[in-house]
């Protein structure tokens, strides 16, 4: 587009992209494959949106990871949220992406709303607090989802609610952690990864140190990268170099935002309000130990699961859906039988087809002309 945006366009420059593309092509060894997983849905989105794959040599394969918050939430948790929304006392406040995620029997929050449920789309946790203040006679539940990036704002909202004595506010907490999911992926023998493009925003919160185990325990390199397309290209080049020299260390391409320790303030805030769950169910990855957060006893009064007596029921995935394998990186969207036929962004069967960060949705919306 012709509009110029300072501080952003520099990272989307076509000239620099061609230059980097040439560098990568020169350094890859023709006889081998390089399988790199971008963990984050934000990277998946950028890769498709800018057509990055066209600028990489055929030997470099990008495998799409599970870092899409709405994609990894299991059906049972979606069902719980829909049931909660149908409680006439409840206003359910949610990020827009969650509205279309299918639960059991294709139920979703959009349909629940059409049937009379009070579901409000919000942009931040603070919006949910405002709804609670404006509706003192109603129970306002914030459907909290996401990795370490959306967790601190939820913590802040809970702390504020306690401070204000906002008794009609609670949180249905589904916040998850990046490192245990990464471990889950690396334990998957079929993924056969040569390296990982590490999260950008998540890393700004948790720091580069959080990934040391990938190099130490699994012998794989990690390059933490920003979400701009040149960041991704640069990270690929750095990973190729590590693989070629048989190195496996944690490198940071995203130095303009990420440090070794991360954002200590945000971490302290999360630790003050949340503690780890012993185990949490992930779509595709199954039950992972210490992989999600819940409210600490000090804040238990704001825990919607306790307040409404919610319990988690594991629900099996629809048979035809390959989201599980796709989230683990062992299959690609076009391997799925229902991709683009029964499962489309308008009628998603699996969650990967819902969010723009989901591998299937990105592939469908930006890349499916390749398969035709």
């Amino acid at each position, binding site marked *: *587009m*012709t*509009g110029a945006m300072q501080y952003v366009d520099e990272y989307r420059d076509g000239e620099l992209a*061609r230059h980097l*593309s040439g560098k990568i092509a020169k350094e890859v060894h023709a006889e081998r494959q390089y399988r790199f997983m971008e963990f984050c849905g934000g990277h998946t989105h950028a890769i498709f*949106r800018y057509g990055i794959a*066209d*600028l990489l040599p055929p030997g470099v394969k990008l495998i799409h990871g599970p870092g899409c918050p709405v994609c990894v939430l299991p059906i049972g948790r979606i069902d719980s949220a829909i049931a909660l929304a149908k409680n006439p006392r409840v206003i359910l406040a949610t990020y827009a992406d969650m509205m279309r995620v299918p639960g059991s029997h294709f139920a979703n929050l959009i349909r629940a709303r059409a049937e009379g449920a009070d579901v409000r789309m919000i942009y931040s946790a603070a919006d949910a607090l405002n709804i609670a203040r404006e509706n003192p006679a109603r129970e306002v539940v914030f459907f909290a989802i996401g990795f370490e990036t959306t967790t601190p704002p939820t913590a802040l909202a809970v702390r504020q609610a306690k401070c204000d004595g906002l008794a009609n506010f609670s949180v249905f907490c589904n916040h998850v952690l990046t490192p245990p999911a990464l471990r889950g992926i690396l334990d998957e023998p079929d993924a056969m990864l040569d390296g990982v493009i590490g999260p950008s925003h998540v890393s700004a919160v948790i720091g580069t140190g959080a990934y040391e185990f990938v190099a130490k325990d699994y012998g794989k390199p990690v390059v933490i990268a920003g979400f701009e397309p040149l960041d991704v290209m640069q990270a690929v080049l750095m990973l190729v170099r590590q693989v070629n020299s048989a190195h496996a260390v944690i490198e940071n391409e995203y130095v303009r935002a990420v440090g070794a320790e991360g954002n200590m303030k945000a971490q302290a805030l999360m630790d003050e309000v949340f503690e780890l769950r012993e185990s949490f169910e992930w779509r595709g990855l199954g039950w992972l130990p210490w992989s999600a957060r819940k409210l600490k006893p000090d804040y238990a009064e704001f825990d919607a699961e306790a307040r409404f007596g919610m319990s988690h029921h594991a629900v099996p995935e629809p048979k035809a859906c390959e989201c599980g394998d796709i989230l683990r990186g062992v299959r690609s969207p076009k391997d799925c039988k229902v991709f683009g036929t029964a499962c489309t962004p308008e009628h998603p069967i699996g969650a990967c087809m819902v969010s723009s960060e989901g591998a299937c949705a990105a592939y469908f919306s930006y890349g499916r*002309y390749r398969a035709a």
Partner: protein
Amino acid sequence: MKRRHYIRPLDIERGRIDMTHGSGGKAMAQLVEEMFVAAFDNQWLRQMNDQAAFAVRQGRMVMATDAHVVSPVFFPGGNIGSLSVHGTINDVAMSGAIPLYLSASFIIEEGFPLADLQRIIKSMAEAAREAGVPIVAGDTKVVEQGKADGIFITTTGIGRVPDGMLISGDRARPGDRIIVSGTIGDHGIAILSKRENLTFETAILSDTAALHGLVAAMTDRVPDIHCLRDPTRGGLATTLNELASQSGVGMRIRESAIPVRAEVAAACELLGIDPLYVANEGKLVAICADADADALLRAMSEHPLGQNAAIIGEVFEDEHSFVQMETAFGGMRMVDWLAGEILPRIC
């Protein structure tokens, strides 16, 4: 028309619409006469019949209707009134037709301030007068508080297509060129900047405008334009997909050729939306034969509403009717239909 005399004039400054204004009785007659007829004033309305009668010439006529529910009703660069006039004129004009008459139907919520109604009606009257298309018939209904959001306006327009002209969404052919008349996304971003939960500071104005003048200048120079469409809801991406599937062809566009204001690009970046999907109310997409493209582009550039016109891509053969884009970054990607709803009530 003989003016009736009402005991008390409408209190436009402080008054509000109440249920009597939609009852069919005296209060409604007063509202219609003192506000609508007074502002739209023309020979057809003055007859005070339930219909407008006019003679038509032989040839092809076109008709289009458009409901307007935009929120907020007042936005930078316009309001629901001017928008409702421009929107329908543009739908008529995209056939190459000369718009002739409009009708307008109002659904107003009880409690709506008369002062706001007056502002809306005045800007409708102004837009209609500027466009040279009279509003010749109308209707007003009032619904109870909570049953509508302020005001909804539906307009219908008819127009006459010049002899021999055939502009239609199914006429794009491989080899044709795709032209857009100016910067995209201005209207959607202007609206979003005023949404209660998003408010941000921006100088962007809605591009709401009647395009029939531009269309006349274009068909004057290039009579055989294949397709015209205004990329409103769903933006440029949706319009190109509609035309591609109607014509059974593929399209390839270049991201670097698409005009986008820097402010719009920045706002989209911040909100995480793609300007290709953001609504326009004063832009059009034209598709014509390669041999006509330069002449058409020149005709557009010479018109005030087409100053930033640009050729953005080509039509090619593709049984899947995919719209593809060469990104400014150097890769290729698809430009798909809009899934779901990113910006409700944009027009």
